[in-house]
């Protein structure tokens, strides 16, 4: 008789979710689904608010990546005003975006995922956390904490506070950076670079021991989508969208982020609150694509900073085409952290960062504004329609985590099929299924922002898998 194994809650991710694994008559995995079980509603909450309030409101979507939402929201506001922001403001925005990438990746790598690959997938579950890591390698754990602290400290120094800073605004930013703040940021850089050398040196040998996981946890061809400079280098703030396939052939290039809706569609499924974006020319679900660290390194030809470029060249040698193994999201995250520190070094060495002209002033000149940036988990779009009084009529948020939804579900199913057998169910098997999700570092709070749109089905099953009751909404 068919049965279902439920992993609930999924641990060491940002937000709340569950995974259902369906077994066939012989007890083998027939399919699996990743359900996002939390629900927000920001797209609806914002209707009727003045667009100048949006960066502050959007920041509240997430406590991990509020800066990304402030940036995308401020950029949508820039477009509504129709202004080019002052150069110092643009540099500040870039600086905080790198700080955001650094602190978010440090959380994902050191606090949430490193216990899996440094302590072992089958290590006791009560030890697979930061404290277990501490017992195994105290210095490694300490450096992870300090790296996240560095990213957060930059946000605090420049934005005023580390979470939900009241800092970004349509037309620029609200605070100038002083020499005291700049000098403190620069004082952290040598330690941060040394920590990255240690982390990369520790991670690479571990990868050899994880060959089965790398091969069977989310290893499949998809498209990869990310932002690049006009020259094809890594870009996180302002660039053009490039899409490559699994062979690293360029599928689309020079796409305007403002026109995202012309090439990206959003589908819904009845069993999850999270939307399922897809690349329109290939349809749903064939147009599945991945975003985030792995995708960015696959689409970019270079990093543009010396240390990260060395790592990127080595990374690209891991495959003839694109690197398709989702497990390499973790290594990609480390390379991006290194790149972010190098960019923070460059930006804080630029006197233009300290200029006090930080905000362009103008009235509303448009009725639609789209802002995008590369958030830690991938490209983020904020799309606002406003009336002539500047009040929000409609909001669409296309969140990075949601753009990985199709790939995450496929990764869960592939991992379950390979590692899970109900005949001898081991905890380590289920941890590998969770680990498939952790590769993507999903931020579920961010990605469940719609309201009144998503249908919900609740199924009640007995221990034999028989359906006892079913409730449907929407």
């Amino acid at each position, binding site marked *: 008789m068919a049965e279902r194994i439920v992993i609930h809650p999924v641990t060491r991710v940002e937000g709340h979710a569950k995974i259902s694994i369906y077994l066939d008559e012989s007890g083998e995995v027939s399919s699996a689904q990743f359900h996002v079980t939390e629900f927000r509603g920001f797209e609806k909450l914002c209707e009727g608010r003045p667009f100048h309030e949006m960066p502050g409101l959007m920041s509240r979507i997430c406590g991990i990546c509020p800066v990304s939402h402030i940036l995308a929201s401020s950029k949508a506001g820039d477009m509504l005003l129709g202004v080019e922001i002052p150069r110092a403001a643009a540099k500040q925005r870039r600086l905080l975006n790198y700080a955001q990438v650094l602190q978010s990746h440090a959380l994902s790598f050191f606090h949430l995922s490193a216990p899996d690959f440094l302590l072992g997938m089958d290590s006791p*579950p009560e030890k*697979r956390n930061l404290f277990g890591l501490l017992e195994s390698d105290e210095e490694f754990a300490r450096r992870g*904490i300090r790296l996240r602290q560095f990213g957060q400290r930059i946000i605090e120094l420049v934005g005023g506070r580390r979470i939900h800073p009241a800092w970004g605004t349509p037309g620029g930013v609200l605070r100038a950076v002083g020499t005291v703040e700049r000098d403190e940021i620069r004082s952290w850089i040598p330690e941060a670079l040394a920590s990255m050398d240690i982390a990369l040196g520790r991670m690479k040998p571990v990868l050899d021991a994880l060959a089965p996981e790398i091969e069977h946890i989310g290893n499949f061809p998809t498209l990869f989508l990310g932002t690049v400079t006009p020259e094809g280098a890594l870009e996180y703030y302002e660039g053009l969208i490039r899409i490559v396939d699994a062979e690293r052939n360029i599928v689309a290039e020079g796409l305007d982020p403002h026109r995202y809706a012309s090439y990206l569609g959003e589908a819904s499924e009845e069993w999850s609150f999270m939307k399922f974006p897809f690349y329109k020319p290939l349809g749903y679900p064939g147009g599945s694509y991945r975003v985030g660290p792995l995708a960015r390194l696959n689409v970019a030809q270079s990093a543009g900073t010396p240390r990260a470029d060395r790592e990127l060249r080595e990374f690209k040698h891991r495959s003839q085409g694109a690197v398709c193994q989702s497990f390499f999201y973790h290594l990609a995250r480390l390379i991006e952290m290194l790149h972010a520190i190098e960019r923070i070094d460059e930006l804080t060495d630029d006197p233009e960062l300290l200029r006090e002209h930080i905000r362009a002033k103008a009235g509303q000149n448009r009725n639609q504004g789209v802002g995008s940036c590369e958030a830690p988990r991938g490209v983020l779009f904020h799309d606002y329609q406003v009336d002539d009084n500047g009040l929000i009529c409609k909001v669409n948020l296309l969140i990075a985590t949601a753009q990985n939804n199709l790939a995450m579900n496929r990764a869960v199913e592939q991992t379950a099929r390979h590692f899970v057998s109900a005949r001898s169910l081991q905890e380590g098997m289920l941890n590998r299924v969770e680990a498939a999700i952790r590769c993507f570092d999903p931020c579920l709070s961010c990605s469940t922002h719609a309201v009144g749109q998503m249908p919900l089905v609740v199924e009640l099953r007995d221990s034999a898998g028989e359906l006892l009751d079913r409730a449907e909404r929407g």
Partner: protein
Amino acid sequence: MGNSLRGDDGVAQRALQLIAPGGHVRLRQVCQLTPELAAEIAIAGADTVFFLDADPSSTEMTLEPVELRSTRGTPLAHSMSPAEVLELTRRLYGFAGEAFLCRIPAKYFGHGEGLSPQAEAGAHAAAKMIQERIAASFTIS
């Protein structure tokens, strides 16, 4: 710790506003406890740490010691307890001081700023008690 946009959940932040910073006292407002606080406690060279939090299950304000003890952490890893932050600080930075958890009674956690009268009174009482503890510790030494 707490969220000032959820009614009485901001009671600890209110208490912090009433405690004079500077001198030997460092204040830090957070929505939740995270590992980086271990480094902050160590860098500050703290010998005593007070954690303040809203407590819906209490009817009276309490100040209880947070014991330094071995902890394994929680698998969810969304946030940490005071004991876990202290354990990290002890293990990574050799913290050997004292720590206390101040539980302030709180009832209303709906959306919006502002405290109930009971929570407002609790914030004042908590601030007074902690300031007296701090003053007493410096008088003794």
